[in-house]
C-alpha cells in the first residue's frame, strides 16, 4: 500500500465518519463541528492528492462557513445543546435505503468502470496555481465572472428575503 493510499484512507475515513456523526448526535453545535471536521478532512484529502491550493481553500472556506452555520443552528433550534434528545428525523427506512443505494451505486461505478491510463506526472503547486490563473482569466473567464455574479445575486436575494418587511403607514 502506497503512502498516498494510506493517507487517503485515513482522511477519507475521517471525513465519512464525521459526516455520519453529523446526523447521529442530538447536539446541534456538535453537528456543525462534526461537519467542520468532515470538510477539513476533505481538504486534507485534496492536499494528499497534491491539489495544494484547492486543499487550503477548502479548509479556510469551510472553517468560516461551518462557524456561521453553528451560530445559525444555535439560533434556530429549540434544543441546540441536545439535552432533551429531541428526535428530528422522519422516513428513516426510506432515507437509509436511498443512502445505501446511492453509496453502492456510486461504489460500483468507481470499482467496475474502465478509467483508462492513470497519470503519473502532475504540475507542481506553483505551476498549478499559474495554470489555474490562466484558465480562470482566459478561456473560462465568462464562467468565472458568471459565478461571481451568481454569488452577488444570491447575497442580495438572501438579504431581501430575510429582511423584515416594513409596515407601510396608512395615508392620512
Amino acid at each position, binding site marked *: 500500500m502506497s503512502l498516498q493510499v494510506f493517507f487517503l484512507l485515513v482522511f477519507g475515513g475521517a471525513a*465519512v465518519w464525521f*459526516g455520519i456523526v453529523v446526523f447521529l448526535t442530538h447536539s446541534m453545535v456538535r453537528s456543525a463541528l462534526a461537519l467542520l471536521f468532515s470538510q477539513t478532512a476533505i481538504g486534507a484529502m485534496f492536499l494528499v492528492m497534491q491539489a495544494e491550493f484547492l486543499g487550503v481553500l477548502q479548509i479556510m472556506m469551510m472553517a468560516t462557513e461551518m462557524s456561521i452555520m453553528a451560530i445559525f443552528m444555535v439560533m434556530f433550534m429549540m434544543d441546540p445543546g441536545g439535552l432533551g434528545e429531541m428526535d428530528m428525523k422522519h422516513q428513516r427506512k426510506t432515507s437509509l435505503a436511498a443512502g445505501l443505494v446511492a453509496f*453502492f451505486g456510486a461504489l460500483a461505478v468507481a470499482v467496475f468502470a474502465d478509467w483508462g491510463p492513470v497519470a503519473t506526472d502532475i504540475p507542481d503547486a506553483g505551476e498549478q496555481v499559474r*495554470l489555474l490563473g490562466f484558465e*480562470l482569466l482566459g478561456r473560462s473567464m465568462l464562467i*468565472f465572472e458568471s459565478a461571481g455574479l451568481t454569488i452577488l445575486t444570491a447575497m442580495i436575494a438572501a438579504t431581501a428575503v430575510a429582511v423584515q418587511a416594513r409596515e407601510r403607514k396608512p395615508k392620512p
Partner: protein
Amino acid sequence: MSMELIVALSMGAALFGTGVYGALSQTNLVMIMMGIELILAAALVNLVAFWRYLHPDAMEAQMFLLIVMTVMAVEMAVGFGVAIARFRSRGSVEMEEAQELKG
C-alpha cells in the same frame, strides 16, 4: 487501474450516500442543508480525484471545482435567507410543520 483513484472515489461514494441519507431523513431545514453540503463535498472529492489521476494537465477540472464551491456558498446564503424568513413568520424551521408548501 489505480488503487488511489478507486479509494478516493469510494470515499466520495460514502460521502454521497451519507449526504443523501441526511438530506432525506432530517426534519430541520438547517440539517437538510448539511446533507446537501455533504453531497456537494462528495462531488468535490470526485472532481479532484479525476483531475489528479486522469487529467492533471486539464485545469478546467479545478475551475469546475471552484464553481461547485460557489454553488455551496450560494446554497448556504439562500438557505439561511429562507430559514430566517420562515423563522420570523412561523417561529420554526421544522419542515414537518411546513405542510402548506406542498403543491
